[in-house]
């Protein structure tokens, strides 16, 4: 293990922690508009999980090789597949399987203490204050994974962590019990403040570790329900220098992952920068990372 980095940003912390959850035998779903997830899987693949397989929703493909994260040319990554499927096959075959697809990250707009999630709307469904894009496959997959489902959000606040979600579109532990569909349920929630897990007995959310520089009060204050707090509270292990070097240098040098974290003008500037740099590329195949 190389030295821990002393110079990392929040998006890098999130991405590295997500990468560390991947196992060498995983089949990793890369969804739509989730560059953090893509960067995390690619980082895992070039560090501790060389045999892991990408399952791209945008291509409905199984892909073995890791390539640099890209905005405009992502189909170049997905089309180099050893297997193509259509969405029907892909969704229906992978749904109950323990081998075709094993790990997926969901980013909820709202989450409750049992890991039930909402990506549908704020307010009443019939008359919503905010309509979100929708939950895509979360309603199908969240209750099935034998590895469980994995959650993340760069917005650890009381708008996200709520006592009751406005619409359950992803199943956690309904009423504190495992889903009758047989999956292992949510395993962790990685946020900008902490690494959260679920208590074995009560299935309630508890603090696993708190990120360096964050205090317990901040985490409690930012959560809209009571978290279980372990007696010996530990600090999250930050990214290593090696992880940061790979992430910045190889996996995602254009910092596309940051689009998930930034807002407003900063975000727009980064987006324009990424577009400009990618349009200027002569070679439109993202770099192979082997």
């Amino acid at each position, binding site marked *: 293990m190389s030295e821990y980095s002393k110079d990392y940003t929040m998006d890098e912390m999130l991405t590295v922690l997500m990468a560390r959850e991947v196992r060498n035998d995983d089949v990793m779903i890369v969804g739509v508009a989730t560059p953090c997830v893509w960067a995390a899987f690619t980082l895992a693949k070039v560090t501790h999980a060389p045999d892991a397989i990408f399952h791209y929703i945008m*291509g409905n493909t199984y892909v073995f090789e890791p390539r640099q994260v890209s905005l405009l040319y992502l189909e170049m990554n997905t089309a180099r597949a050893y297997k*193509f499927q259509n*969405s029907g096959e892909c969704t229906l075959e992978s749904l*109950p399987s323990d081998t075709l697809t094993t790990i997926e990250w969901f980013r909820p707009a709202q989450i409750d203490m049992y890991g039930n999630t909402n990506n549908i709307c704020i307010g009443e469904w019939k008359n*919503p204050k905010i*309509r979100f894009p929708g939950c895509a496959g979360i309603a199908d997959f969240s209750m099935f994974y034998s590895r469980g489902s994995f959650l993340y959000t760069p917005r650890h606040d009381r708008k996200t962590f709520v006592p009751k979600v406005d619409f359950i579109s992803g199943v956690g532990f309904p009423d504190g019990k495992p889903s009758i569909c047989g999956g292992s349920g949510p395993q962790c929630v990685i946020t900008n403040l902490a690494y959260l897990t679920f208590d074995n007995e009560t299935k309630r959310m508890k603090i696993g570790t708190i990120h360096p520089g964050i205090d317990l009060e901040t985490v409690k204050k930012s959560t809209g329900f009571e978290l279980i707090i372990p007696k010996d509270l530990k600090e999250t292990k930050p990214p290593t220098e090696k992880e940061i070097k790979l992430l910045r240098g190889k996996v995602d040098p254009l910092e596309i992952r940051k689009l998930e974290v930034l807002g407003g003008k900063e975000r727009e500037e980064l987006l324009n920068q990424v577009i400009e740099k990618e349009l200027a590329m002569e070679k439109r195949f993202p770099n192979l990372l082997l």
Partner: protein
Amino acid sequence: MDSKLMSLEEAISSYVQNGDLIGIGGLSFWRKPICACREIIRQEKKDLSICTFVGGIDVDMLVGGGCVSEIRASFVGMEVFGMAPHYRKGVESGEIRISEESEASIALGLKCSYLKVPFMPLKGIIGTDFPKVRDDIKQFEDPLGSGTQLMAMPKIDLDVAIVHVNDADEFGNGNIEGAVWLDDDMAKTAKKTIIISEKLVETEDIIRLPRRAQIPMQTTAAVVKVPFGAHPTSCFPNYTFDPIHIQTYLKTDFEEYKRKYILNKTHSQYLEEVGGVQTILNVLL
């Protein structure tokens, strides 16, 4: 054998009726038949139900154009560019209805259509709030006695499917080089299928392509040739999506957008308006 080749105008006016349930192929920003969406807006079609696996600018544009009364999609958004503004406004104001869908609900709905069964069982969705907003789905116990709880997901019978492909012959065989998504299921189960193709080839050429025809001619009603017809979405491996035009779309008032890019525009005039040769060079892979 009769040729099914026709103009985009003729295909949409012949096969798309007000009130139809229309399946749109592609996913998100990828291989969407956007030229057909513009034609639907030009022809002022009304009261359409739009079904697509993952929607983006296609759905948003049709909602903005006032053509839509209902959306059936597992997701409608503009990806890293943000939310789909007209879709969001339409739902929040109650102007359009939603049939809340997941990925499997659409995939299974189309499978029902092949099999002519009213529903397919799904061991998912259970535990979500979907049953509260979908009175056409129902949880039930396995009638064969295993005790398993299941969700009945209803059939989706499309009136029309519109898909964008790389290659097609004039008889309606269509070949997709990249991901197929639900395009083949839509094309094969819809009552009428319109294929928009980048390129028109001989049947002989389709036979020689590695994955041949995912879309068979016997279910195709119309073939339309429109190079760059998926713009501003992608058509792999010909071109990627046009991020600059997507940003323009999001920044432009829809009435102005319609005047500038949709109404009274031929396809070549449209390509000129969106940036002409430079735009084409930008997106070519």
